[in-house]
């Protein structure tokens, strides 16, 4: 573009070239750096999804233990609040001696954050099951396990997925801080964009983060509708 402007004297081309002007919005940037953007987006999605899935797999047994053993409930919820209070940059830094400058550091940190949201969601969901329903289930001959999986869990599903949506959306945003250990997905592009004062890169990567969060949110909402056909058309 610059070359063409110099040779042909097309000053207009230079003025329109958003890369040269360092504009915030620049289709030319998206076109020429598509590979880089795709790679960062894939890494971002991978870190987010792995973290939330591990978080969910750990949250379920933890919440069930908290429900069974009353004394552990306060301890587990208190620990969750404490972890939630620790800023992400500090949490990743505290993990540094154990997992070093790796993607694992970011994933462990994000798992801890999603855990705090998900344990609460599981407990709130199960607490919300009316006692009469539980009684009816027992009367129909469900074992404690059968009652949990066939009656309580399905009824707790809206709250569970609500928690999963909050955990997922915040994890997408928090992944950007992973750039401090070199694994921040789109956060890495924001960081290098800051260092080189490259506005298009910063804005494009930021917008992509928000888009990923919204898309995953809609996917989870769709999953809830799919899993609970009896609630379709009603209030979500």
């Amino acid at each position, binding site marked *: 573009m610059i070359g063409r402007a110099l040779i042909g004297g097309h000053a207009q081309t230079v003025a329109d070239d958003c890369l040269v002007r360092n504009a915030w919005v620049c289709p030319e940037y998206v076109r020429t750096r598509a590979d880089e953007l795709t790679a960062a987006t894939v890494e971002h999605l991978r870190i987010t999804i792995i973290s939330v899935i591990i978080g969910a797999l750990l949250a379920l047994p933890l919440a069930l233990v908290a429900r069974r053993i009353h004394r552990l409930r306060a301890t587990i919820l208190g620990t969750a*609040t*404490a972890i*939630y*209070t*620790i*800023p*992400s*940059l*500090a*949490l990743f*830094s*505290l993990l*540094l*001696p154990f997992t070093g400058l790796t993607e694992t550091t970011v994933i462990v940190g994000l798992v801890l954050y999603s855990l705090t949201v998900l344990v609460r969601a599981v407990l709130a969901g199960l607490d919300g099951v009316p006692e009469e329903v539980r009684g009816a289930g027992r009367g129909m001959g469900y074992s404690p396990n059968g009652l949990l999986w066939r009656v309580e869990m399905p009824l707790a599903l809206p709250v569970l997925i609500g928690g999963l949506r*909050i955990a997922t*959306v*915040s994890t*997408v*945003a*928090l992944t*950007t*801080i992973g*750039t*401090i250990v070199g694994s921040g997905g789109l*956060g890495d592009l*924001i*960081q290098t*964009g*800051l260092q080189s*004062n490259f*506005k298009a890169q*910063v*804005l494009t*990567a*930021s917008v992509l*983060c*928000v888009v990923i*969060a*919204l898309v995953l*949110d809609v996917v989870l909402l769709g999953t809830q509708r799919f899993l609970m056909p009896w609630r379709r058309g009603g209030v979500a």
Partner: protein
Amino acid sequence: MGWIGGVVAWFQDPANWQGPNGIPQRLLEHVGVSAAALGIACLIGIPIGLWLGHVHRGGGLAVGVSNVGRAVPTFAVLVILVLAPEPFGLSTVSIITALVLFALPPILTNTYLGVNEVDPAAVDAARGMGMNGPQVLAKVELPMATSLLMGGVRLAAVQVIATATIAALVAGGGLGAIITNGFGTQDQAEVVAGAFCVCVLALSIEGVMALLQRRLDPLRVVRAR
């Protein structure tokens, strides 16, 4: 576990307790911008939330703003503001603006919900006693909403402390700067020590705010029964 010794040694080094990169100075910067931002966010968010709750309008906005706030990375907003033209750019204005933006949603949402969900019977009784709108808001709705309102301020305080830490990534000061300095010089002890300071600050603020939330609640005696 040799790293623990390194961290202890870092804390014992008097050099880390003085000068522009010392713990006291960094703590002061951190608390300073955080308090300023939280104050501004309260001044903007509480009146708007009170009003929207009082007239039972704009619920979608008051709640939606929290959901949007969650989806936007704080780091991205900080960087965008730093690269933005005057009065933003690499300045305290940018950092405080970002902190206010992320402190507002929980304050606005909780204040709105607190007032909106006050028992209509209580409001009716107050009106029957001859109170006008502002009196109902000040004497009935606000006291009954205080616990939830302060819960929002508490969430906002936690968010502000966290975002002020991240501000160090875009060349802000505060305790986060100890962490980023450590990464810059590949000094793991300094990174962990900085993170430890941030944790102590965040947990203390959370504790103080939890206490405030309970103390300021005019209904705490009623709730205790």
